[in-house]
């Protein structure tokens, strides 16, 4: 719209640092990078609000589960059956919202 805001926008790491996570030991989302290598859309990379999908040098996708909002965007927009296995973190773990 009008370019940069008239005051500094918070950086992405600082943005995510405002969110409380009780990280589970076991990842609740698993990405099958073999499937991702043949994907040309890679919608997850830009759409994930927590920016957890990172393209790797070998053409795959690295996924970080620790700061996941558990929203479901990634599996819903994914074009490739089986690329993203999605479940909830173990009970009591994952995102804990306080001011939402």
């Amino acid at each position, binding site marked *: *719209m*009008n*370019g*940069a*805001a*008239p*005051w500094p*926008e*918070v950086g*992405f790491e*600082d*943005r*995510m640092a*405002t*969110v409380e996570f*009780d990280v589970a030991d076991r990842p609740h989302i698993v990405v099958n990078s073999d499937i991702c290598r043949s994907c040309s*859309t890679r*919608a997850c990379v*830009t*759409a994930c*609000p*927590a*920016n957890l999908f990172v393209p790797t040098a070998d053409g795959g996708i690295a996924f970080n589960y620790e700061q996941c*909002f*558990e*929203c*479901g*965007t990634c599996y*819903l*927009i994914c074009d490739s059956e089986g690329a993203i296995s999605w*479940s*909830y*973190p*173990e*009970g*009591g*773990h*994952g*995102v*804990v*919202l*306080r*001011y*939402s």
Partner: protein
Amino acid sequence: MPERFDAVVVGAGPAGAAAALVLARSGKSVCMLERGPFPGSKNMYGGVIYGRILDTLIPRWWEQVPVQRWVTRRETRIMTPTRSLTVGCSSKAWGEPPYNGMTALRPDFDRWFADQAVAAGAVLVTSTVATGVTRQGGRAGGRVTGVRTDRLGGDLAAGVVIACDGVNSFLAKEAGLYRRADPDHFTLGVKEVLAMPAAEIERRFNVSGREGVDIEVLGATSGVPGGGFVYTNLDTIAVGLVLQLTGLASAKVRPEELIAEFKSHPDIAPLVARTELKEYSAHLIPEGGYNSMPRLAGDGLLVAGDAAGMTLATGVWLEGVNFAVGSGAAAGTTACQALDRGDVSAAGLAGYRRRLERTFVLKNHKKLRRVPALLLTDRVQHRYAPMVCDVAEGLFTVTDPAPKPGLFRLVRAAAKQNGVRMADLARDGWATVRSIG
């Protein structure tokens, strides 16, 4: 804890708590499973809870609800990058009992509401995920007889399972109540909660005491189908966007960049400038409405709230918590009657849908069923906002020494300027009247 309940309610959000409250008050044993450490810990929304449905469940609820502010002014702003047209309505009555809408923090509200069910006798088990359903005889397609949980030895048997497990409802999907989920029908809500002293909120938003404001915005999502919002809490404000999933994916932009653009709009910046981010959050919204809902009952199973796609997203009316409460309470009532009759088959639970059809929940959804598709048309998303701003700007721009152009000429010129055919304008106008009239 007993291993069998009359009803197991999965999810202690507004739908689940309403279902559990109704069941517990009728003397049924009921267990609410919540996967977060407390009710509301996983929940996020776009800002306003309309409390009328609470009247029937908790008389004088406003004396105890953890409210942030009572919404006494409601605005819709139609925007282009440099212009905006605001239609607003304020009412003193909305700031007095029985009130109209309130802002509240979901961790506060959901916990309070779930506590009402607990006070009525429901058992709340937190930090526990319902990982699937159990079925009669262990047969696929058999009647649902309970849920599996991620706790050790964690099967819970139930006369009826009520899935209030949110927008991703893995239980309703596992039970086969959903056709394949269409990402077109979901939006991503992203929200920043910003710290702001109450006195500064009063100054910027022109309110006093516990009065609050809810602003909904069309045309400020940089071409991605969706909308924006700003609303006031007590000493925080919330600003965010609602973005259609497929539109967001194909635009290849990041949600937080779109929020930054929204916040820098000349009509929004003065409200949100120089504030500290207190919490960032994201959540999906089921926006497909009536035509995208799942089957609402299976053998031994009911679905309510976001899990059943009950959110009403129709442009002027953006409601969800009230629909969750309304559907959850109806599910609770239906479950009670089915348990009393000893028939919890899909046929025995079919009264749930009929009950919803008689209340505001499905009456509104049915009446407004054409609106979600209408809102997603290219004209509504990309052409009407600048066209409306053209007309408004033309009306209020003084053209001396030339005479005023007149409304009809302005509309025709604005339509042409924005590639809108008058025939389409008439058709959409008629569709709108037919849909919401």
